[in-house]
């Protein structure tokens, strides 16, 4: 039973989480505490994973970076490094999938202990969970970053082109991870026994979706590779892109928060 495996600290954390999300009338249950605890651990592991990914990209770039005037031309490029980088990306996607799977397993285990199971007759779709504004933001962020990376490929300097290639592969990895995580957030089964736990399930999904679509990895990736090789205009364009994305994200967060307050629903996205 979940009661035995839930620590008082986890229960207290669940109570705080409910208070933060304006669900003060909902009692923290072992079900909620267990689900939140596994998410917290998975989120921490995912953050470490992303940090490791950025370090790996930087290492691959540094060790395989072409040097000197002889660096021009495809022969001087260390193709193996791109293969290594692709393997690192695949490893990131796999590790993230395993983390998501672990969360699903715990959800399934605690769900199996419930004598009653509740579900929505109409499942909340991506518009409800993620919201159109955040979905558009996520797509625009990846599109903008890809465009800039492709823009860096047009630079004549071979070192810059190599760095741009590293950035492109990294961005593709980040995009795949985001899609995998979003799919998990949108499709994993509801674990609820009543109206209150059904509401907390939706709030948890919304929070997970927001976490997934915050482009922290996208913003960090150029630091690991391209910034010291690309021309000044590119660096300026990237800084402008990050600033605009950050402002957009802040505006969306404030707007959705106000909209939620107007509707009297916790974390309602649109």
């Amino acid at each position, binding site marked *: 039973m979940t009661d035995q495996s839930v620590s008082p600290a986890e229960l207290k954390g669940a109570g705080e989480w409910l208070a933060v999300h304006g669900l003060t009338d909902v009692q923290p249950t072992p079900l909620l505490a267990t689900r939140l605890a596994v998410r917290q651990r998975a989120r921490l592991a995912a953050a470490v994973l992303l940090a490791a990914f950025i370090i790996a990209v930087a290492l691959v770039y540094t060790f395989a970076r072409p040097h000197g005037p002889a660096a021009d031309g495809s022969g001087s490029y260390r193709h193996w490094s791109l293969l290594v980088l692709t393997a690192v990306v695949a490893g990131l996607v796999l590790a993230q999938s395993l983390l998501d799977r672990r969360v699903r397993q715990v959800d399934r285990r605690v769900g199996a202990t419930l004598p*009653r*199971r509740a*579900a*929505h*007759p*109409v499942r909340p779709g991506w518009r409800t969970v993620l919201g159109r504004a955040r979905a558009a933001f996520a797509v625009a962020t990846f599109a903008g970053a890809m465009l800039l990376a492709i823009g860096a490929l047009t630079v004549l300097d071979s070192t810059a082109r190599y760095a741009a290639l590293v950035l492109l592969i990294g961005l593709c990895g980040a995009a795949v991870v985001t899609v995998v995580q979003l799919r998990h957030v949108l499709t994993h089964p*509801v674990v609820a026994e009543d109206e209150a736990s059904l509401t907390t399930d939706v709030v948890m999904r919304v929070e997970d979706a927001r976490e997934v679509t915050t482009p922290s990895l996208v913003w960090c990736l150029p630091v690991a590779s391209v910034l010291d090789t690309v021309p000044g205009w590119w660096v300026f364009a990237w800084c402008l892109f990050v600033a605009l994305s950050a402002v957009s994200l802040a505006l969306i967060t404030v707007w959705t928060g106000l909209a939620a307050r107007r509707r009297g629903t916790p974390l309602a996205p649109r």
Partner: protein
Amino acid sequence: MIVIDSASPVPPFEQLRAQLARQIQDNTLAVGTKLPTIRRLAADLNLAVNTVGRAYRQLEEAGLIETRGPAGSFVSASGEQGRERARRAAAEYAEVIAGVGIDTDEAIRIVQAALTNGTAATPPSRLATSHLPDGGRDA
């Protein structure tokens, strides 16, 4: 919200069917609403896929939902026709009741028994043997 209580004596497929039917009939689920896929609802409610499939099939037979191939199952516009069918059946039932001389309270009890059992109720033996001309076989 749909709730399946594993401790209930009512089978899970019937709990699901009844709750969806009620929500469709009281317009909580509007005409054209897309229902979750069988597989997904089964995962959400921790039920077997066949259990949810059976509930959906019965709702389909009752005209409350329709399945449009891979697009999924939707609340049917013929839900109103379903109500009309129920009204017609009730009128026919009332005629039978009047014809065989059963009083209203007893007629309502028969309907309640039928609804509780989820199938056509077997009328009380007193009815079947004493009031019906053919010994109750068609009741």
